[in-house]
């Protein structure tokens, strides 16, 4: 393993690439009792059309998420979640548009739990009966998600912003799309995307990096695989065709989500810089101490149910700013004014304050091993090292942030999705 010291944050990272292509990162944390391991594949809900050496293959929406559910079934009839729990670990998994990640935290028997994790994720076992049963379970999950205003406002925005990219569809798919999934779909997608060359193992804790490496070599297949190519459809138009959508639902007050697209940089280092510039720029534009937020809060147009984020998945970048307001259109108008003001230049004081707050938040994030491992995995797939963020943050200038806002958030690029209270449903 190659070790690299990050003096600014007092951390050491051990990295290596196994002969089978698996990329390993271990953040050694002496003195900590709990350890954490995340085993992730660069495969998510948006990776629907792909090829691995041969012909292009199209798959229905929801396969990555379906696979995640089914991977816990083991050939001996056990469920990997139960086995890990019985062994003192706290396991779980998630699927996003661009990644599927299996992880656990444990305070004892870390190496044994790691073996279990690597084994169950690399051993596909599906039967027609279990697939059919899962279609029912996930179908219910989809039904519940579709009823949720948070999901509806999000999907509404994605449909406005993206005309072609599969990120406009729900990661879990629809009841119809998952009905097309069978054991063949699952086995072939597992084969294409769950090969070590398309995966990463990221761990943090008081653990021996060489031992982690040795276990990965012992448990996983020896042969490297292909890194599959994905097709996300034709290029998106410069600006969204339609910029506003509303639907009625049973909510107590209108919910809104304002968004814009950002094209991610292809080069890893530039990508990391872009991510940091973007999140700093958003903090300056609409963070908790921004004139935009505090002004609207004081006027009662926004409450504490307000948040903003930049999501980077599957070759997309999406700005999202949302919350609850009686006047979503007024919020959008005021945001456009704030965009204009920030685009014109950022004062050194406002910039310095935002950068300080961001540094503090990132330092706090290092205490959370879950966050550390997932950030490292995102970095592996994005072509950068997540721990370089601290060094890069120091070199960012106010002009870069102003430019980010001006380029990506001009009024004609903003779209807004709104959920309005359904009068008939809420009055009774």
């Amino acid at each position: 393993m190659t070790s690299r010291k990050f003096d600014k944050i007092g951390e050491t990272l051990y990295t290596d690439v196994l002969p089978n292509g698996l990329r390993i990162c271990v953040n050694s944390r002496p003195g900590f009792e709990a350890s954490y391991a995340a085993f992730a594949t660069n495969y998510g809900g948006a990776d629907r059309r792909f090829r691995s050496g041969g012909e292009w293959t199209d798959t229905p929406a929801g396969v990555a998420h379906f696979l995640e559910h089914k991977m816990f079934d083991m050939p001996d009839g056990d469920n990997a979640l139960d086995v890990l729990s019985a062994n003192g670990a706290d396991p779980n998994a998630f699927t996003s548009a661009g990644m599927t990640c299996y992880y656990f935290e444990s305070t004892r028997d870390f190496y044994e739990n790691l073996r279990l994790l690597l084994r169950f994720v690399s051993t596909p076992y599906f039967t027609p009966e279990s697939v059919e049963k899962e279609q029912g379970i996930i179908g219910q999950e989809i039904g519940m998600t579709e009823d949720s205003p948070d999901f509806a406002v999000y999907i509404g925005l994605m449909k406005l912003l993206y005309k072609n990219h599969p990120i406009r569809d729900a990661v879990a798919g629809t009841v119809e799309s998952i009905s097309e999934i069978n054991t063949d779909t699952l086995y072939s997608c597992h084969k294409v995307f769950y090969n070590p060359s398309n995966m990463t193992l990221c761990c943090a804790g008081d653990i021996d990096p060489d031992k982690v490496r040795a276990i990965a070599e012992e448990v996983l297949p020896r042969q490297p695989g292909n890194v599959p190519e994905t097709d996300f459809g034709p290029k998106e138009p410069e600006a969204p065709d339609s910029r506003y959508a509303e639907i009625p639902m049973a909510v107590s007050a209108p919910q809104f989500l304002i968004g814009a697209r950002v094209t991610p940089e292809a080069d890893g280092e530039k990508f990391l810089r872009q991510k940091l510039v973007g999140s700093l720029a958003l903090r300056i534009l609409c963070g908790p101490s921004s004139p935009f937020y505090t002004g609207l809060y004081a006027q009662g147009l926004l409450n504490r149910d307000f948040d903003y984020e930049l999501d980077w998945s599957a070759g997309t970048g999406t700005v999202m700013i949302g919350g609850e307001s009686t006047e979503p259109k007024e919020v959008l108008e005021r945001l456009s004014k704030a965009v204009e003001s920030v685009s014109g230049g950022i004062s050194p004081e406002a910039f310095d304050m935002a950068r300080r707050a961001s540094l503090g938040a990132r330092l706090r994030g290092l205490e959370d091993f879950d966050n550390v491992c997932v950030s490292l995995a995102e970095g592996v797939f994005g072509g950068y090292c997540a721990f370089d963020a601290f060094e890069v943050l120091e070199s960012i200038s106010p002009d870069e942030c102003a430019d980010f806002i001006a380029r990506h958030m001009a009024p004609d690029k903003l779209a807004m999705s709104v959920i309005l209270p359904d009068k008939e449903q809420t009055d009774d």
Partner: protein
Amino acid sequence: MVTTRKKIMPGVWLTALRTDKFKTGCLSVSLLTQLSRDTASMNALIPYVLRRGTTPCPDMEALSERMDSMYGTAVEPVVRRIGEIQCTGFYASFPEARFLPGGEDMLPGAALLTSELLLAPNTRGGLLLPDYVDSERDKLLDMIRARINDRQGYALQRCIEEMCCYEPYAVMRLGDEKTAAAIRYQKLTKHYHALLAASPAEVFYCGSADGETVAEVVRDALASLPRGEIDDDIGTDVRMNSVETTRRETVEELNVSQGKLVMGFRLGECMEDPDIPAIRVFNTVFGGGVTSKLFANVREKLSLCYYASSLLEAHKGLMFVSSGIDAENYEAARDEILRQLDEMRSGNVTDAELASAKSCLASDLRAAEDSQGELEGFYLANALDGVQMSPSELAALCEEVTKEQVVETANSVVCDEIYFLKPDGTAEDDDDEQEI
């Protein structure tokens, strides 16, 4: 970690943990009062009102700016109930100097901000602002009313209310709706001053500074803390026996799909000179986690419940078993839970059960040293008990506990109240099914 504990002002104690393990440092100040129905809501409301604005930073915008410029330092209200003591105050978290440009030390600034929040609120004519009091009181009322949304927590609270109906312990952490609704700004201001003057305070620090430095910083920051006659008599009353000779049962109906059974126990005579490690191991063997008797038998073997686990309130000498069941299994589940306790009383504890419980408990305790938040809670509870011990030291003592000690503890425990939240048949969906 190096731990120091000393009195730094009249009625003010500081526990300081020196360590370089973390990226951030933390500092908390808790005012301690005797839990009482009349004052619980006011004590819970005060830090939230104070967090709205101070003399130097009159509103939340100014406070946010100040915290941003202090590298994202966060100071937030914390309200707890430990035994029959209510702890109300602030918890500050700030980056360590060695990770900041220029090595700027945030501890003095964080201590000053915490003290301003506590001692220098934004007032008009000496009174807390009616706007702030009214809006925070309404949020408190929402929080109190929302307790029914968490069915399991609600059933536990109802069991406590029935079981401890003659004891202050029945009062909730945030007080009750009726007294909360009656709070007005004049009354709250008066109570705020009384709280500051009479309450003993516990200060906790964890970070890279040494105890002496921290003591100086905190003494400076809290210099204007009014110290009147300190109420040193606060504490938790432990009742050893059950309220009536036979255990009580309460059944209530609600539109839940899954019934919630909570059984309340008094730890009994063992509380006269409590052997905390033995009590903790007993609780873990009985109902703590997947290798416990309750999980292995009531859930796995007999499938009488969706989950079953036991929860310890050692300060008050109580234990609660919490379980999710179908209504028709009420008697069977209740009897089986009691039977598992009888098994332990008669010495039926295997070496494997004991070893697994000790290992589970010890590693959980040691893992508390990974988190400043957990360390803070652990040491605050210790301070109230007059105990000085680290989580690892307690873990080591738990590892020494013998089967005889566990059986002896089991024989001291008595069931006092059984509470069942029964489905009334109107719920549509299995929406609250859950597992441990």
